């Protein structure tokens, strides 16, 4: 973890520590800012909330949302729940695996895209659904996916790789 990251963790900790039930808001604040919760942040969090490191780690690992490693510059979340399955989600999953050459929880070698599974995005009447860097997409076809992947690559080229993940 870099110096500036540690500073940002400390800021998030200071902002949240006095909330009732502070741990989840704190972890969210850190991940919203850095894209993940660096393992090196755990002692700082534990100290601020008078918890053991094991307790903090236990919470981080319990929840699917929290990441302990930085994601790619773009995060594609594919819904794998029933409504999306009923209308082709698994075709999308196959397409993504093929195009990106990675599986769920993976990040492409160039660090451009991470692939994650989600179970319902509340877009079940416009299924299948995916979320790209926090933007919801519905009635997604393989062609739309291709466009999403190509755009992600293009955007990176133009802005010289800025932060993509929410």
């Amino acid at each position, binding site marked *: 973890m870099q110096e500036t990251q540690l500073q940002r963790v400390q800021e998030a900790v200071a902002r949240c520590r006095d909330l009732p039930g502070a741990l*989840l808001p704190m972890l969210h604040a850190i991940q919203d800012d850095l894209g993940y919760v660096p393992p090196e942040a755990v002692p700082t969090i534990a100290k601020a909330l008078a918890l053991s490191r094991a307790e903090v780690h236990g919470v981080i690992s*319990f929840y699917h*949302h929290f990441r302990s490693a930085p994601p790619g510059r773009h995060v594609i979340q594919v819904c794998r729940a029933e409504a999306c399955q*009923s209308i082709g989600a698994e075709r999308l999953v196959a397409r993504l695996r093929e195009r990106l050459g990675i599986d769920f929880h993976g990040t492409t070698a160039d660090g451009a895209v991470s692939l994650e599974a989600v*179970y319902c995005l*509340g*877009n*079940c009447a*416009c299924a299948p659904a995916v979320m790209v860097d926090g933007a919801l997409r519905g009635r997604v076809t393989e062609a739309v996916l291709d466009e999403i992947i190509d755009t992600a690559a293009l955007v990176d080229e133009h802005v010289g790789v800025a932060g993509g993940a929410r």
Partner: protein
Amino acid sequence: MTVRIFVPRDSSAVSVGADAVAKAIADEATRRAIPVAVIRNGSRGMLWLEPLVEVETPAGRVGYGPVTVADVPKLFDAGFDRGAPHPLCIGPVDAYPWLAKQERLCFARAGVTDPLSWSEYVAHGGSRGLRAALAMTGADAVAAVTESGLRGRGGAAFPTGIKWKTVLDTAADQKYVVCNADEGDSGTFSDRMVMEDDPFVLIEGMAIAGIATGATVGYIYLRSEYPYAERALMAAIETARSVGVLGDDVLGSGRRFELHVRRGAGAYICGEETSLLESLEGKRGMVRFKPPVPAISGLFGKPTVLNNVITFASIPIIFDRGATFYRDYGRGRSRGTLPIQLAGNIKQGGLVEKAFGVTLNELLYDFGGGSASGRPIRTVQVGGPLGAYIPESQFDVPLDYEAYASIGAMVGHGGIVVFDDTVDMARMARYAMEFCAIESCGKCTPCRIGSTRGVETIDRIIEGRDRGAQLAILEDLCNTMLSGSLCALGGMTPFPVMSALKHFPQDFGLGPDGLAAAA
């Protein structure tokens, strides 16, 4: 004269292009020097028509959908800004049968108003319920909820009034109101729509709960998969504070009610109420043993009103129009209306609010128009991932809590996921077990280990290895999960599995009698 044109801001509409359409309409109007005000309303819930653009005319609002950016210049050419005909035109939206046939109590304003406009909320009946509640004693307010017959819409269908009475009657220095906005069931989005399309109704319902029971602080536990709803709620809460609905002096009554949003973190089990409370307290979402019930010892050990979004959103109209008005809808012990969500492989999917008693046949064919693929509908799953798969022979059972329980099914949160005849029910059964394994909190062995064994056993059945013995093992596993689980995740995962096996044995390589003979 400036024409008012409505383009929904609902995330489902945005997911299929509403933002781009809104911008295209504004740009094209400027180009043509037509004075237009683009208003971002909520969604009407006719989600297959999204983006559904509405134009205000002297004869009411006329709808066009689904509109793409490429359609916009052609719509202007046709004169849609005057409500002129066009192939995408559905006519006056309020008279459109899909909508007109509904009984919208909870969703009366959705799609009609700008969700973030307090003045429009009030102009369309909002805040009257809270004012009525403020004029009542706590006991009378709670009695009104009991009398309305309202039962929790989160899944367990527990009478809301009884819960509130327990909180009212439990003395404490602090009480809480917690809204379960975890909406984890596949095929459900009514909570999301309330939060994005009419968030003040949820805020008002929670404030009434606080006023009625003596709770001064509320939390909305919102799933992390709903960033659009989070932004809408934050903005609405900010406005509610500024107009004095929230804060130290609720509508000048001298009563206090404060409200906060807390984000979940992608754990399905945190929709279970005690797991949710653990999570709100900053812990892992491990399910608690009951008793004590949350109404007596809930958040931080204090008496807590804990209800689903739709339950709270049903409260204001009960106080505005009266308990009898509400209970006159519905049948048997299922009173009022249910916002039903038509999802998955359905041609006309979206939100249908109807009094209890509507049948799947009406929902799937009259409203839904059949499958999206055009193939025959084979089965539907009602009530989320723990709900049974229902075969066509039961599509005429009236949708109410008791009638569904009597066929081993569950209304749950009112989500209906539609599958056509290409569905492989053995795979769906396997998925139910897999989902349970992924989402188990880990407290009970039958749920944690049994679900993984279930996946393996179904795999063997699919492969045709020793089917008879494997079937016996699966049945045994299901029985152990049914009886040996602390909560409904482990305790009800057998429902989708066993219903798939019972109604569709051929998908498991079995004869129609469910025996392994056909292997």
